[in-house]
């Protein structure tokens, strides 16, 4: 296949990704609204049997070490908190994209999910450093979704990781996304954007996904949020939780300084905070006994 044929095939593959349930779509939408309570979350979840079952399973898992079994979804949601509920919903809804082995990135199954989760946690913390207000829950959700496109384009990037690595060392591409564009005609950020449109994800999620490696191209009003996701992604990669072959092979856009205030010490504190939160949450998703294939 030449590049044009590949691009057509990728765009078709995006259309073939199953849609997310209306409950999940509504949850994502809600997390972006500034005024909402836990009761509204419960209301969405309780009408989705699969989601309810999964949430009860997590809250009763060993990681939470509760003395008494939790049976009520109200109780479960309030114990877990909104971010965890959205996280569980996404891993259910898009598990096929998140959890599969990504040959196109030389990444084991689960690597993308770990990277997305770590980026989400970092995004929420970095949102607190934005110069104008950025909603932390919204930042979390954007972080969770930012690399969704990798689940689609990976199938078309098989056998490329070594070649891209060599080309990057010879400085043939400014970053990994540029290499993807050269091979496929579009990169994982654009693929994720297309997918988010198919899923009818509410604004500003599609833009945050599309521009997380090129935040300067986002609408001015959305830049505080998009730069937050941009930095969160980088923090996750620096901490050793990238996806695979592409880890750290992206550019830092230093124009973030106009939107986010971070001194060296503050960044160090962010990294520490992310590490602590991640080890708590990772225990919930994978259990403590499982050995994560990446550090942190």
């Amino acid at each position, binding site marked *: 296949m030449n590049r044009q044929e590949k691009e057509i095939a990728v765009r078709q593959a995006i259309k073939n990704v199953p849609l997310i349930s209306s409950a999940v779509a509504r949850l994502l939408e809600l997390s972006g609204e500034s005024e909402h309570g836990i009761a509204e979350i419960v209301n969405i979840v309780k009408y989705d049997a699969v989601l309810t079952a999964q949430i009860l399973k997590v809250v009763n898992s060993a990681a939470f070490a509760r003395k008494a079994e939790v049976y009520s979804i109200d109780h479960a949601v309030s114990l877990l908190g909104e971010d965890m509920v959205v996280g569980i919903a996404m891993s259910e809804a898009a598990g096929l994209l998140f959890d599969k082995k990504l040959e196109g*990135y*030389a*990444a084991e199954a689960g690597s993308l999910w770990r990277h997305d989760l770590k980026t989400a946690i970092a995004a929420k913390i970095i949102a607190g450093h934005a110069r104008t207000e950025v909603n932390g829950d919204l930042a979390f959700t954007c972080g969770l979704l930012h690399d969704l496109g990798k689940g689609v384009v990976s199938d078309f990037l098989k056998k490329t*990781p*070594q070649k*891209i*690595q060599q080309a*990057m060392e010879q400085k043939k591409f*400014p*970053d990994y996304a540029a290499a993807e564009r050269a091979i496929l005609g579009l990169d994982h950020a654009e693929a994720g954007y297309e997918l988010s449109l198919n899923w009818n994800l509410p604004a500003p999620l599609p833009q945050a996904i599309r521009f997380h490696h090129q935040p300067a191209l986002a609408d001015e009003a959305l830049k505080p949020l998009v730069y937050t996701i941009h930095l969160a992604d*980088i923090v996750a*990669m*620096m*901490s*050793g*939780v*990238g996806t*695979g*072959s592409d*880890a*750290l*092979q*992206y*550019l*830092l856009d*230093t124009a973030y300084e106009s939107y986010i205030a*971070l*001194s*060296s*010490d503050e*960044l*160090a*504190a962010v*990294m*520490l905070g992310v*590490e602590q939160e991640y080890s708590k949450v990772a225990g919930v998703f994978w259990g403590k006994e499982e*050995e*994560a*294939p*990446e*550090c*942190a």
Partner: protein
Amino acid sequence: MAKTKIVGVGEFAVSKDPEEVIKTFALGSCVAVIFLHKPTRTVGLIHVALPESSISPEIVRDRPGYFADTGIHAILQKMAAIAMPPGSLAQGMVVKIAGGANVMDTNNTFNIGKRNVLALKKILWPLGMGPVTEDVGGNISRTVSVSVGTGKIVLSSPTKGEWEI
């Protein structure tokens, strides 16, 4: 089969068991410092995340290994206790470091990998333990494993396979 001891971020391990392998995953901007004490065949590995402990004195109690300044002293204390060298620990000690990567076009704030490496060297040099080999920087995430018996150090990354330092 060799026994493998996994070292997480901010942790360290010291071993004298020749059957053992000490391993740490995906360093990113973190740095692994490997101590090979030849006279007593003792090996130590620490996975340092940040240059200075002053940002969080609370963490230091639980995980001194998080930071370059507190981590080196903590692991050397443990090495001295396990190796029990006849003279100074610095005698016959070989130190190697790996990691400290960065994203591309990084700035001073985000250059934590480089600052980690510098902070570590500043602590190691006066101790007479300056690193003899370093595989640091760049834009790759390294995994490190050390065989205690042979002192062989193998690095790996998703696209570059394995190599020895």
